């Protein structure tokens, strides 16, 4: 019997021929990712008696969650992190404004095929877009990695998701992700490695593929994987920080769940309050009033997403009753969006453009809703209270739908604006 991607990479990392699901292995990750939570992790590291980190090159520290600092407390938090980075000689540090950690990891050539990324952030499976094994871990676990260099992992069961057909117009990888999450449920892939295959996955560009690896976290998964191909290798050419060796699952690997989807049957999908798996087709809820529209986050804040939103907004204004916030996922995305004129389109339409980072995604700043307000967002989470107040509602959609809804002041299919 062959092995899944997760089994293969964990066996390799553990120095074993093969491992089986449920087994515990101890491994040393290639990348240990942390963000604004680096300071609290440092507190735990010190409590453990830690002085020098195990390997400074292993760290990727990216400030993104509350950047630029919205309060003195946040600023202090950042200062502690900068001191730590200098003191330990950590080379891969990216200060405020560079962008959201998962996006920056990819742009900087630090998420590499056949490597393991452990991150103290639940969307670390994002790295699966490059064929890396990315898994989220807790703060104490991160501190323990800093100290000892390794951590225990349970070898996960694996899910195979095969997607065929083509996406219809106005339908994106976001809709596919929501469709699959609605089908499998928020616990549909709990502890599992979700491995995506099929002609549609091959056809998607990296930006769209990243939506899938990113949203895999919302099925309860441990990690995700999309087969690295020439598109990935070309992207990494001149960008990869190290030589890498892709790992592919065996064709006869044993998957606990196998799902097939036909992309051509999917329509724009919306995750309704207050869970990501509360998914309905757009046509069911079109007309729902919104107060705010938000384009951004590690899920849908890339150049392609901004292009999609700008396309919908060009020569239009957002509704009087509505605000729109746009936050590019990284400084690279921001620069390109400026060059291509998208930022001007947003400003002309009446939107607010903020500096790269997580923004209001988890309620920190730059556009949190008021009590009773409704937000439509291109993010990955709509839990009660996620954006700051539990008395507000969040709908998740693709960037075309978010932009169209900003124009109409209500949840709207972009084709209805034409």
């Amino acid at each position, binding site marked *: 019997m062959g092995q899944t991607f997760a089994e293969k990479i964990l066996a390799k990392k553990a120095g074993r021929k093969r491992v089986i699901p449920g087994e*515990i292995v101890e491994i040393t990750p290639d990348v240990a990712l942390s963000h604004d939570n680096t300071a609290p992790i440092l507190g735990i590291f010190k409590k453990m008696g*830690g002085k020098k980190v195990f390997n400074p090159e292993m760290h990727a520290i990216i400030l993104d*969650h509350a950047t630029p600092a919205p309060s003195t407390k946040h600023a202090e938090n950042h200062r502690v992190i900068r001191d730590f980075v200098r003191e330990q000689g950590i080379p891969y540090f990216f200060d405020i404004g560079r962008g959201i950690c998962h996006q920056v990891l990819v742009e900087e050539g630090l998420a590499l095929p056949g490597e393991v990324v452990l991150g103290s952030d639940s969307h670390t499976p994002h790295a699966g877009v490059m064929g890396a094994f990315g898994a*989220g871990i807790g703060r*104490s*676990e991160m501190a323990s990695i800093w100290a000892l260099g390794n951590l*225990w992992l349970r070898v996960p069961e694996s899910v195979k998701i095969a997607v065929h057909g083509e996406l219809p117009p106005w339908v994106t990888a976001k809709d596919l992700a929501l469709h699959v999450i609605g089908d499998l449920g928020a*616990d549909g892939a709990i*502890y599992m490695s979700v491995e995506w295959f099929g002609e549609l996955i091959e056809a998607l560009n990296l930006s769209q593929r990243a939506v899938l690896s990113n949203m895999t976290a919302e099925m309860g998964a441990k990690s995700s994987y999309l087969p690295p191909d020439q598109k990935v290798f070309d992207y990494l050419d001149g960008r990869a920080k190290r030589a890498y060796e892709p790992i592919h699952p065996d064709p006869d690997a044993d998957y606990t769940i196998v799902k097939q989807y036909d992309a051509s049957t999917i329509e724009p999908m919306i995750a309704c309050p207050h869970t990501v798996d509360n998914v309905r087709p757009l046509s069911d809820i079109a007309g729902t009033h919104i107060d705010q529209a938000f384009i951004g986050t590690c899920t849908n804040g890339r150049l392609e997403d901004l292009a999609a939103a700008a396309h919908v907004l060009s020569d239009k204004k957002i509704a009087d009753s509505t605000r729109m916030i746009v936050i590019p996922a990284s400084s690279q995305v921001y620069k390109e969006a400026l060059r291509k004129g998208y930022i001007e389109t947003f400003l002309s339409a009446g939107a607010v453009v903020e500096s790269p980072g997580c923004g209001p995604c988890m309620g920190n700043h730059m556009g949190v809703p008021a009590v009773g307000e409704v937000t439509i967002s291109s993010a990955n989470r709509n839990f009660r209270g996620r954006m700051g107040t*539990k008395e507000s509602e969040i709908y998740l959609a693709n960037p075309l739908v978010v932009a169209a809804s900003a124009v109409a002041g209500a949840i709207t299919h972009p084709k209805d604006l034409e």
Partner: protein
Amino acid sequence: MDGINIIRGRVWKYGDNVNTDVIFPGKYTYTISDPIEMPKYALEDLDPHFADGVQPNDIIVAGTNWGCGSSREQAVTCLKQSGLGAIVAKSFARIYYRNCLNAALPALICPDAVDAIGNGETIEIDVAAGEVHCDAGTFTFQPVPAAVIKIFEAGGLIPYTRKLLDKRRGVE
């Protein structure tokens, strides 16, 4: 596993998919950093009676996917600090499960027991034997993985790492 072998306490019962945003609200994650302060906000958005009413060794009994959402450890710390003895659930979100074990807060997967146990009931858990005793009878659960027991025995990942670091420095 001294101290956590037998856990006897009152049950706080909750449903499926309780996420970390309601266990410990995101708005506090960068403003409240002292663990002693955290129990005050535990489950604030789910059960306003919990924070005041929880007694040492009480037990949360929950449905599937307890602790889904963000990786924030405070969602475990706030419960551990409140004196909670254990969480019995049908299933746990992966990171939450790890955070529990690393904090030496027993996280036990026992779907049959969850269905049988009522809110407010007093139950007893034998961690070593892998048994839950409740009004409806006795249920068994998968024991904590052997590789994690050593972390449990050290009292959590922090003391465990400290011990190993000291040992490494000793041999250096």
